[in-house]
C-alpha cells in the first residue's frame, strides 16, 4: 500500500511538503479546539434549537 506513495522518482518533495503544510494546519485547528471554552461551545451548539419563537409558536408541531 505504501509503495504507491513512496518511490516517486524526484516527486517526493511535493508529497512531503504538502503533508507538512497539512500537519501545521491541523495542529493549528487542534490547538484552537483545546483552548475553546465550554460555555461558548454549549451556546454555539444550541443555536439551531434555541430559535426565536415565531409569533404563533407552531414550530412545536
Amino acid at each position, binding site marked *: 500500500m505504501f509503495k504507491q506513495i513512496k518511490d516517486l522518482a524526484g516527486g517526493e518533495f511535493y508529497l512531503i511538503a*504538502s503533508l507538512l503544510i497539512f500537519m501545521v494546519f491541523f495542529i493549528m*485547528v487542534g490547538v484552537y479546539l483545546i*483552548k475553546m471554552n465550554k460555555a461558548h461551545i454549549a451556546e*454555539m*451548539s*444550541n443555536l439551531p434549537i434555541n*430559535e426565536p419563537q*415565531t409569533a*404563533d409558536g407552531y*414550530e412545536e408541531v
Partner: protein
Amino acid sequence: MQLEKFTYDNKIVRDFGIATIVWGIIGMLVGLLVATQLFSPSMNLGNQYTTFGRIRPLHTNAVIFAFVGNAIFMGVYYSLQRLLKARMFSNALSKIHFWGWQLIIVSAVITLPLGITSSHEYAELEWPIDIAITLIWVVFGINMFGTIIKRRERHLYVAIWFYIATFVTIAVLHIVNSFQLPISFLKSYYVFAGVQDALVQWWYGHNAVAFFLTTPYLGMMYYFLPKMANRPVYSYKLSILHFWSLIFIYIWAGPHHLLYTSLPGWAQSLGVAFSIMLIAPSWGGMINGLLTLRGAWDKVREDVTLKFMVVALTAYGMATFEGPMLSLKQINGVAHFTDWIVAHVHVGALGWNGFLTFGVLYWLIPRIYKTELFSKKLASFHFWIGTLGILFYAIPMYWAGFTQGLMWKEFTDEGLLKYANFLTTTLQIIPMHILRSIGGALYLIGAIAMTYNLAKTMLKGKLVANEAAEAMPLEKEITNEDPADKKWHRILERKPMKFMVISMIVILIGGMVEMMPTFTIESNVPTIASVKPYSPLELEGRDLYIKEGCVNCHSQTIRPFRSETERYGEYSKAGEFVYDHPFLWGSKRTGPDLHRIGGKYSNAWHYNHMLDPTSMSPGSIMPSYPWLITQKLDISMTEAKIRAMQTLGVPYRENFDAVAQAKLKEQAETIAADLKQNNIDVKSDREIIALIAYLQRMGTDIKANKTTIPSNQ
C-alpha cells in the same frame, strides 16, 4: 434595547422546494431512460436528440444542478434566515436567483440534446450559460452575505460555514474550469490541452462532488438533524475539526480520477495520499450526525424524516469509506472505467443526497404550510421502496463492475487475453443492467409517491408566506468584550468576510501545488516530435465526436497494464495530447478504448459500424447514427476553428486558415473515393466522412514508427 419584529420569507423556500421535486422527477426519468438504453439500443428512440451520448449529460446535469442544486437553495434559504434571525437580504435578489437558476436549467435541457456541449463532465454547458451561472451564483452570494451582515445573531453556526465554503469554492472551480475561447455563440475550445486540461477538469469534477454534493449537505445536516431530533449536535468541536480538515484535504484529491493516465506520477500520488486521509474528516461528519441521535433511537423508529436522515448518513459513510479505497491504485486499476464507479456514485447520490433531500422536504413543507403531513403511511412507503431501489441499483452495479473489470484483465494459460472480444464482457453484464433499471424505477416510484403526498399536504394547509418572528438587534459596538472573544475562531464566527477569505486560501493551496508545476515545468509533459496538429477535416470530425457525446462511453487513454496494451496497443503518453483542446480521455468504458483505433479498421468498416453497429459487432449495444450519413458537414466555422487553435498555441503554419477548406475537401474526397471502392456510395461532404477521418487519425502519430499493432478487439 427593544425586540425587533420581522418576517421570514417562506415563499422562496417553497418555490425552491417545488423546483427540487419537479426537476428531481425529470432528472430521474431521464436516468431511467439512459439506464434502459444500456441494454436495449432501441431505447435511443431512433433520433439524434435522444441518443445515450447526448442524454447522459442531461441526466447528470438535471440531477446535480437542478435536483440537488434547488434542494441546496431550499435548505440554505430556510436555515440561514433562522440561524441569523433575519429575513433574506433582498426579496428581489431571491427572485432573480430562483428564476435565473431555473432558466439556466431550461437552457441545459435545450442545448444538451442538440449536442451543444463542452465535453467536460459536469461542466458541459457552453460559455454563454457558464457566464449566466456565474452571474446567478454571485446573486446568491450577495443575498447570503447581505443576510449575514444584517443578522441579529452574533455567531455564525457551523452550518453557515459550510454554506460559505460552498459558495466560495464553487465560484473558484466554476471560473477556472470555464477558461474557454469562444468561436461562435455556442461553440468554444478549452484554453488548456491534454494532461493540463484533464487536471483542471478533475480538480473541478472531484470538487463539484465535494462542494456541491457534500459540503452544503453537511451544512443542512448540521441544521436540520438537531431540529428534527430536538437536541444539539453531538460534538461542536468535532464539527469544527472536520470542517477545516474536510475543506483543506478535499481540494487535493482530484487526481484520483486520473490514476495510471499520463498525468505526472507525483501528482497522482498526491491525489492518492490526500484521498486516503479524507476518510477521517468524512467519517467525523457522519459519526457526529449519527451520535446526535444517541438516546433518540425510539424517535427514529417513529419518525420517517429521521429514518431518511439515518439512511442518508449511512450512505454518506459508505461512499466516503469506499472512495478512499477506490483511490488506491491497485483497486482503481480494476474499478476505473467500470460500473463499480457508477455504483459508488449512486450510493452517494441516491442515498446521501436523495434521502437527505427527501427528509428535509417531509420536515419542512408541513411546517411552512402550518399543517401536518398528509400521509405518514405513504411517506413510510416511500422510505422502504426508496431503500429497496438503492439496493437494487447498487448491488447489480457492483456485481457488473467486478465482473467486467476482472474479465478485461483475464489471461489464458497461453498468455492471451481470455476475452479478447470486448463485446463478450458487455453482454455478460446485461442482466445486471436490467436489474439496475428496476432499482431506478423503484426509487422513482418512491419519489412520485412523495410528490403526491406533499402536494396533498400543501392543498390541506396554507402557506405562511411571511412568517412573523422577533429578536433583539445586534449591538454595533461590543464594549466590554470577553477576553475569550479575541480567540481567532470566535473572531471568525463574527467576521464573515474574514472567514470567507481564510476558507478561500485554504482551498486554493491544494489546487496550486498540483497545477503550477504541471503547467510550468516542461518535463511534466514530455513532447513527442512525431505528434502533429489535426487536419481541418479531422478537427471537424473531433467536434462531431464531442457533439455526439462519444466520450460518455469510450475512453481515449490506455493505461500501462499488459491487459490494456495487449487489447488496445501502446499505452498513452502525455505528449500525444498536447493539441487536444479539450482532452477526451473519458471516465467510463461502456465500449472499448479508442485511443489506438486509427488505422485498425478500414474506412468501410467504420461507415457500416456507424450506420448499424450490430452489422459489424453482433449484439453491440451502441446506438446507430444514420443521420451522420445524411447530414452535411457544417464547415462554416472551419477557418475560425483553425485560427482559434493557433491562438491557443497549436502550431499550424501561418495563414493555414485560408487553405483549410481546400485541404478539408481534398481529404474528404480521398475518403469518399476509398469508400466507393468498397461499394459505398456517399457524398464527400457528409458528417460521416469527417468522423471517419478523425477516428483513423487517433493515436497514430506515435504508431508511425511501429511495425505491428496488437489487436484492439
